[in-house]
């Protein structure tokens, strides 16, 4: 499933500035992510990559232009099209089950005071299944391991059946089995035409999914890194990691 060429970019930011408590964090960023594209936002701790994505999603005050699917952010209402996976640390959940957390992902499509529909229930189950946690659905979220919690948050975003996924550091504190599982999830999304933007420290297991990487350094966007094996199949998996711009970043 490919988007028609006329489809507006999933994300368009121009001249984006964000200051937190007076400190400039994001400075004059221009960013465009085409519909169906998979892009990594790379950078060191404190480089501004998370703040950049939060601004794009309207979670933090900013100056400059942001459009989602061609609509300026302040007029954008179609939030069911966005699936956000924030960093795990910000979540306050004590007794809720994994299923209850994932069910929140349906709220963009549910009306208030109405029970879950059959479609809601199916989407919640499918999403838990996609991250291999169907049998932990009734377990307390807080008692799951870090990797399992990350998978629940990904499932919550999957449940929205969004066209645009924004994942913030999905690999933080996650073991290798979960890493390759998440890469599989991303690959399935990409095959369905979902736009994917990931804030990452390193490309790691996502090399075969990503079309390109954007480097954020000190709040500014660095050189774009085109994926050398873009949509040619075959030997793509290690090429991006061999790119000096990307490997150089890990060494910093």
């Amino acid at each position, binding site marked *: 499933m490919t988007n028609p060429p006329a489809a507006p970019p999933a994300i368009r930011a121009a001249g984006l500035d964000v200051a937190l408590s007076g400190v400039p964090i994001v400075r004059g960023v221009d960013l465009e992510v085409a519909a169906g594209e998979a892009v990594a936002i790379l950078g060191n701790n404190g480089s501004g990559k998370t703040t950049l994505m939060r601004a794009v999603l309207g979670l933090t005050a900013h100056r400059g232009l942001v459009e989602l699917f061609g609509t300026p952010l302040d007029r954008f209402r179609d939030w069911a099209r*966005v699936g956000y996976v*924030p960093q795990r640390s910000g979540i*306050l*959940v004590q007794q809720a*089950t994994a299923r209850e957390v994932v069910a*929140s992902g349906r709220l963009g499509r549910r009306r208030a005071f109405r029970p879950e529909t059959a479609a809601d229930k199916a989407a919640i189950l499918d999403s838990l299944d996609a991250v291999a946690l169907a049998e932990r659905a009734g377990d*307390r979220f807080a008692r799951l391991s870090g990797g399992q919690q990350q998978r629940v948050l990904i499932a919550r975003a999957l449940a929205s059946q969004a066209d645009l996924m924004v994942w913030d550091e999905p690999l933080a*504190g*996650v073991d290798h089995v979960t890493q390759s599982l998440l890469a599989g999830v991303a690959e399935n999304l990409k095959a369905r035409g979902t736009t994917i933007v990931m804030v990452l420290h390193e490309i790691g297991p996502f090399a075969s999914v990503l079309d390109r990487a954007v480097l954020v350094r000190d709040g500014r966007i660095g050189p774009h890194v085109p994926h050398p094996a873009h949509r040619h199949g075959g030997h793509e998996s290690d090429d991006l990691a061999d790119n000096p711009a990307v490997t150089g970043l890990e060494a910093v």
Partner: protein
Amino acid sequence: MEWLSLEFMQRAILAALITGVMAPAIGTYIVQRRLSLLGDGLGHLAVAGVGLALLTGTAPLPLAIVVCVAGAIAIELLREAGRAQGDVGLAILFYGGLSGGLLLAGLAGQGAGTLAGYLFGSLLTVGAPDLWVIAVLGLVVLVVSIGLMPQLFAVSADEPFARTIGLPVRVLNILVVALAAITVTVSMRTVGLLLVSALMVVPVSTANQVVTGFRRGMFAAMGVGAVAAVSGTIGSYYLDTAPGALIVVIAILLFAASWPLSRLLQGDSTAPRQVGSPDDEATRQKVPEEHPHVHGPNCGHRAVEHAGHVDYVHDGHRHAAHEDHYDEH
């Protein structure tokens, strides 16, 4: 059972039942956001409304509700603007409410004795019109707490996510504190303004000991709250005490009883418990710490089954015996 035929007791028990159910319902969201002491502060604010009513000679309940809800909304707007993490501002607001209420009551020629009936509850003072207000507002709080459970849960658990899914986060946040303010005020004749916060928090913690899940936890907490409120009200008739005190003591006793019960439900805490498969982050390294004992079934550290062997939970990490040392898992 003579109390059953007394009209004031019938009203008091009904009011207590409504309070006992609604306080944990809204309290579940308050506890989820780690604002357990918010109810206490709102109780202080409501005292100002009571004092104002005593001075002006109007009915205390409606005026206290108006003052408390307005204060709660102001607090939420301050929190949203990022100003209220300075909890000094909140403290000033709360103690201003309490002292202002006492002062106004004094000016009205009413001593602390009159106020005590509002601070700790009073069986004799639930009038028929009050009961109607309590019933209607109780119904509103319950309909919203249960009907909007998925939305309110999402906002309490993860506000950024709730925003990106298009929920009206500000409206929902204000709704929670406003409902909490209503609950606090409505409870002033049963548990009383200074103790109602306990009924919003303690049954929720009790339920969390014994059931899993947000929804089930909320309903269990409502049941616990109802039992504590009704039995405390009846008991206070016999003991001739303020109902609030007994209600809260019973709630705390139920909480204490839930500890051994949760152990029972989860099995023996020292028995091996499957917490993770080998896909858990298992970093293996030698542990340099001193070990005064050898981990075993009775060493007091929780045993955890892990990838075919048993680890012992030790200061937040897991130890696995390996020859002469422990590997850290």
